């Protein structure tokens, strides 16, 4: 007997019997519960999308960069946040952190963060300038923010001689 004999429905003189057997053994659809279980296993294995991976990685990098800026030993702190002097290394780190944030389509959010920070700086300068007077501005005189006095509301003296004494 050859394979071809068996492949034919009527390989046997009693072909109807084979048909009945075929019908009885015909595969049925998988139960929904089983397919759900199998798919749940596959879902757990899904590779995260590229954006998600970048976001996770870049947020970690940005956080690390910000932490380094805050803890950098060369930093010089004054009595207010606005008087912080940044070294070239600090600036490079901030630019790098900003670049990472921008890379993952969070440009708007990171810009918003910077806007808030600048407002804080403006507010701090205004308050400190009003309360502490010349002693503060003497130390912070060379801050470039003075150029924005008209826009930010920061009132900087025209020259050192015009500054009030404390």
């Amino acid at each position, binding site marked *: *007997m*050859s*394979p071809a004999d*068996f*492949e034919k429905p009527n390989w*046997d003189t*009693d072909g*109807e*019997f*084979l*048909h*009945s*057997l*075929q*019908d*009885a*053994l*015909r*595969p*049925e*659809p*998988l*139960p929904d519960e*089983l*397919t759900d*279980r*199998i*798919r749940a*296993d*596959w879902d*757990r*294995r*899904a*590779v995260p999308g590229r954006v998600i991976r970048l976001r996770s990685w870049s947020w970690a990098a940005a956080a690390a960069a910000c932490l380094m800026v805050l803890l950098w030993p060369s930093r010089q702190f004054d009595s207010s946040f606005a008087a912080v002097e940044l070294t070239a290394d600090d600036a490079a780190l901030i630019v790098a952190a900003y670049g990472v944030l921008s890379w993952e389509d969070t440009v708007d959010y990171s810009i918003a963060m910077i806007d808030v920070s600048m407002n804080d700086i403006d507010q701090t300068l205004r308050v400190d300038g009003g309360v502490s007077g010349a002693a503060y501005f003497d130390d912070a005189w060379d801050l470039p923010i003075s150029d924005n006095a008209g826009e930010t509301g920061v009132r900087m003296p025209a020259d050192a001689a015009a500054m009030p004494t404390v």
Partner: protein
Amino acid sequence: MTKGKALNDEQRRLLETLLHDVGPRLLGYVRRAFGAGIEAEEIVAETFSRAADNIEALAASGRQDLYLLTTARNICRDLFRKHRPGLLTEQQSRSQPDRDGTTPADRIESREDRARLLAAVDALPPAQREVVTLRLSAELKFEEIADLLSIPLGTALSRMDAAMKNLKKAMGSENVAG
């Protein structure tokens, strides 16, 4: 199930296709070839889990249905070796000798007959039952069955021939007895 190997979209699509096309054949084969003593659905789930673990090999396989059937068969055999040794060895056919000249096909019409026929398949010697289910449930060709079982083609054919004779005997004798 463990988290296992990660899958990308293309691999996931391949598995979905196989689940749809091969899954029912796989379940039919496992359920019938290895009998009621085995959790066929568990075997199928484990088969697809292992397929996901070895997705590169599966994707590279020329016959992915054979790959899955082989995996399922190996899982079943491992289970039997661990828990039910000897079950896969040849057994004496439980078919009764035919005692009349009636044609079995005449009698396989009702739902009860179908149940009796399936019971007769379950009663076949395991080696014969496996060939029958691979041919009729998994819908493999005899050459493929021989490859999968690592037996000569002639052996696969003779097992099918013997299985058919046993089934006819069983159905004929049950009819007389019933």
